């Protein structure tokens, strides 16, 4: 069965303290791994799509990487405005656009 597991569930960082969020997945024929950021009470905001092992994408203080079993979202020198829940989702092979989400990592960055 397709499954996405994110860890840790919650993470508290001091401003400037770099760290990584993990997304491990089990899916038949990965056709994209997606990272979203979600602020409380709002819809997820698209960050990255990764398609194949070894691929990396960067945006400001965020960098996403992908292996055959997991993805990491690295946060370098975070700021308080990076506080949010980060969601990981996968899409299976052809004939479906359904995204399967993990439960997210709730990140809090303190000044």
């Amino acid at each position, binding site marked *: 069965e397709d499954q996405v597991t994110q860890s840790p569930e919650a993470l508290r960082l001091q401003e400037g303290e770099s760290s990584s969020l993990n997304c491990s997945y089990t899916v038949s024929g990965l056709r994209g791994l*997606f990272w979203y950021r979600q602020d409380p009470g*709002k*819809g*997820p905001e*698209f960050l990255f799509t990764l398609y194949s092992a070894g691929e990396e994408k960067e945006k400001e203080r965020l960098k996403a990487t992908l292996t055959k079993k997991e993805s990491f979202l690295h946060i370098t020198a975070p700021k308080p405005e990076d506080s949010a829940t980060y*969601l990981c989702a996968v899409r299976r092979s052809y004939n479906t*656009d*359904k*995204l*399967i989400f993990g439960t997210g990592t709730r990140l809090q960055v303190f000044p």
Partner: protein
Amino acid sequence: DAGVTQSPTHLIKTRGQQVTLRCSPKSGHDTVSWYQQALGQGPQFIFQYYEEEERQRGNFPDRFSGHQFPNYSSELNVNALLLGDSALYLCASSLWSNEQFFGPGTRLTVL
């Protein structure tokens, strides 16, 4: 360029009632997907519409139905509401099978 819009923002209903939620996709997008997000969970796929037809469906009962109009906007209908239907309902739009962009969501509370 307007992103995905949803209405209403909040809704309170009682058990047994029916509700209709609305979504306008991002300009240039032709596909609309609906997700249900319970508190503290990741979004769960309900169904997807393309060319005015339901293209794929998740594990939701027939009480959940939808529609897509010629202008690509969409509605989600839920009949015979249950307390467990209380959640944030998210609409996501995409161009065919590309990245999905989410709206702000409709918070439904069933009393």
